[in-house]
């Protein structure tokens, strides 16, 4: 067992909702008065169990305890708003926890800090030093790696040009080059925050693999890409509404993630447009996956056709087509099909799509719907709204390993003897 590098103990973080405007000075002073002068208990300290209390505070994290061991790649997964970013902010010391403590050793650097502090009036050279200093390197360290950084960035020719003249690609490459040469003991990679092109994200992942595999460093990886988490991480933590709900083997934690939090797996419906998700054009009324097994109540397996049906309130008369995507729960799209564009009146519209049996491989899938106006303008997307698990089914096969592939169509594959060998010849 490797030594532990960071220990997180009972960390909780509370945020105040809303803006700081008129009255907050008064509220703060009254708090202070009650707490310190009249010696009452902090009224916020008593309410701990609720996620949200009536006074406009919200708990972004609660009871977070875990440890990070030397050399491991720890994945943190969870839905948006589960507290991942807050946790990273606390770990990178940008903000403090409301309760609990974290102890550790080693320098933490994160790739979500790419380009922080870059000043566009300054030259590339000045910015390398400025950014490096901000990220915690001293001048000697930067100088010793300057050539490497320059080479990695590929902007040698423009190094004495102000970065405001750079293309955005050059800018990002230079910024990334500095962050990538920080040499931290602990690297935080937040894929969610690393907005930017696919190439840049790939570079992030590549660097991460490098750092963990070749240099044996510790990495904290936050991502929505389950495939990446599964491939890269040695351990994973699942956050849900600010709490750790699962930790351990990435495969198991991901399975937990995929099965949790989906309240409406096969059916979502709303009775009035007011409460339904959507916008001024579209309100979702019902979306449903109906498995159509050969016998009622039978298992849903790879042979089962799936009928996807949906209804929505159409609030404007317009030319509309519906796109339907089937995704693996890792987020990869298996197919993307679309209805013809139809002129719809105001009112309730409906549609359906039949995914035939003997088409999908076994696994868990989700469905996203896209509402497109005039075949080009996206009005609303209802993403990953449904999910379904398709079980395996095999006949006359004595092998039980994982069947590869996203789809498992029932195309005939022929096999026969072409020229039998004559035993006599």
């Amino acid at each position, binding site marked *: *067992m490797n*030594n*532990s*590098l*960071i*220990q997180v103990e009972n960390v909780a973080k509370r*945020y*105040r909702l809303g803006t*700081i405007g008129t009255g*907050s*000075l008064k509220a*703060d002073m009254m708090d202070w008065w009650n707490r310190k002068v009249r010696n009452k208990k902090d009224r916020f300290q008593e309410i701990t169990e609720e996620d949200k209390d009536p006074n406009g505070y919200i708990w972004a994290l609660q009871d977070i305890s875990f*440890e990070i*061991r030397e050399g491991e790649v720890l994945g943190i997964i969870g839905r948006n708003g589960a507290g991942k970013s807050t946790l990273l902010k*606390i*770990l*990178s*010391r*940008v*903000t*403090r*926890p*409301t*309760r*609990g*403590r*974290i*102890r*550790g*050793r*080693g320098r933490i650097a994160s790739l*979500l*800090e790419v380009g*922080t*502090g870059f*000043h566009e*009036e*300054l030259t590339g050279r*000045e910015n390398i*030093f*400025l950014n490096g*200093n*901000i*990220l*915690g390197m*001293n*001048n000697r360290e930067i100088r010793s790696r300057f050539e490497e950084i320059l080479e990695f960035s590929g902007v040698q020719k423009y190094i004495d040009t*102000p970065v405001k003249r750079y293309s955005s690609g050059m800018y990002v490459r230079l910024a990334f080059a500095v962050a990538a040469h920080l040499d931290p003991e602990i690297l935080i990679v937040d894929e969610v925050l690393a907005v930017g092109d696919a190439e840049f994200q790939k570079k992030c992942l590549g660097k991460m693999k490098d750092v963990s595999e070749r240099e044996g460093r510790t990495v904290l990886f936050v991502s929505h890409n389950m495939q990446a988490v599964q491939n890269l991480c040695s351990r994973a933590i699942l956050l849900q509404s600010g709490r750790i709900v699962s930790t351990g083997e990435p495969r198991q934690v991901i399975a937990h993630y995929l099965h949790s939090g989906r309240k409406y797996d096969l059916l979502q419906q709303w009775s009035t447009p007011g409460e339904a998700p959507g916008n001024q054009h579209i309100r979702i009324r019902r979306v449903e996956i109906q498995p159509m097994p050969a016998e009622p109540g039978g298992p849903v397996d790879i042979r089962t056709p799936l009928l996807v049906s949906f209804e929505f309130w159409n609030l404007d008369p317009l030319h509309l087509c519906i796109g339907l995507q089937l995704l693996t729960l890792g987020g990869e799209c298996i197919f993307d099909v679309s209805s013809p564009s139809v002129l719809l009146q105001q009112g309730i519209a409906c549609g359906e799509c039949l995914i035939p049996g003997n088409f999908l491989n076994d696994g868990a899938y989700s469905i996203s719907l896209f509402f497109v106006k005039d075949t080009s303008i996206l009005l609303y997307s209802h993403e990953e709204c449904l999910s379904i698990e398709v079980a395996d089914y095999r006949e006359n096969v004595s092998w039980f390993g994982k069947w590869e592939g996203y789809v498992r169509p029932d195309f005939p594959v022929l096999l026969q003897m072409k020229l039998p060998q004559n035993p006599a010849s």
Partner: protein
Amino acid sequence: MPSPEIPVPAWEINPSSGWLDLRIRGSWHYKDLVLRLVRRDFLVSYRQTVLGPIWLILQPLLTTLTYIVIFSKVAGISTDGLPAMPFYLAGILVWNFFSECMPAVSSTFSSNAAIFGKVYFPRLVVPVAAVVSQLLRFTIQLGLFFPVLLYYTLYRRTIHPNLLMLAFPLLIVIIAGIALGTGLILSVLTAKYRDLNNLIYFGLRLMMFVTPVIYPLSIVPSGIRFWVRINPLTPLTEAFRYAFLGKGQFSWGYLAYSFICMAVILFAGIALFNRMEDQAMDVL
């Protein structure tokens, strides 16, 4: 499974920092950052200007000329028997140093929110860099002041510098301390209550009128003398003039008053800043 304790925890993150938990050891590591920020300030201020750093000299010179015309020639305010040029220049240099330093420090959070939201480093680095940067500007401006002094001392023989001159770095340190302290307090307050920002510039303008910049302390009428005298910048301005020009109300006791004010304000400022820096981040 419970794991072994971390052998030597190098750092610990807690809900709140102490009032005076300065982390001096860690801070030294960031001296390069302080100097880098100072350098950035300089490089950025004079990018795409025609005259560049010459503005540093030009600005107080132009202000002085304006004051000579308005306050000395038109309004006829006394300059304590001193020639107007060095009299106003001395006041302006001292006052400018303070009045540039203080807002530079107090805007710490608002102008660095983006960086503070992403990277950790001791936040005190930024205000300290702001003060160092202003000190450097002040030093360059002395390059204007000293030739003027020489001219009036040796050629016109109308001013009489004395040995207190040697103590002038002390005066500057006290001014810098007061500016840093007030700035730190205001930086925390403005991070939370942004409308206070408008008050800062108003307050600075008011403060200039109770600091002997455009008049000597000796002509202040008794009605407002109290307000001018309790201003800790007053003894510093007067001492500065006394040291270089030979006239002004100076006593060590009065200077000690300034020093004590500086110590109290700076102590309070650092303590408050230290205590609130992390909370301020959550409301930005």
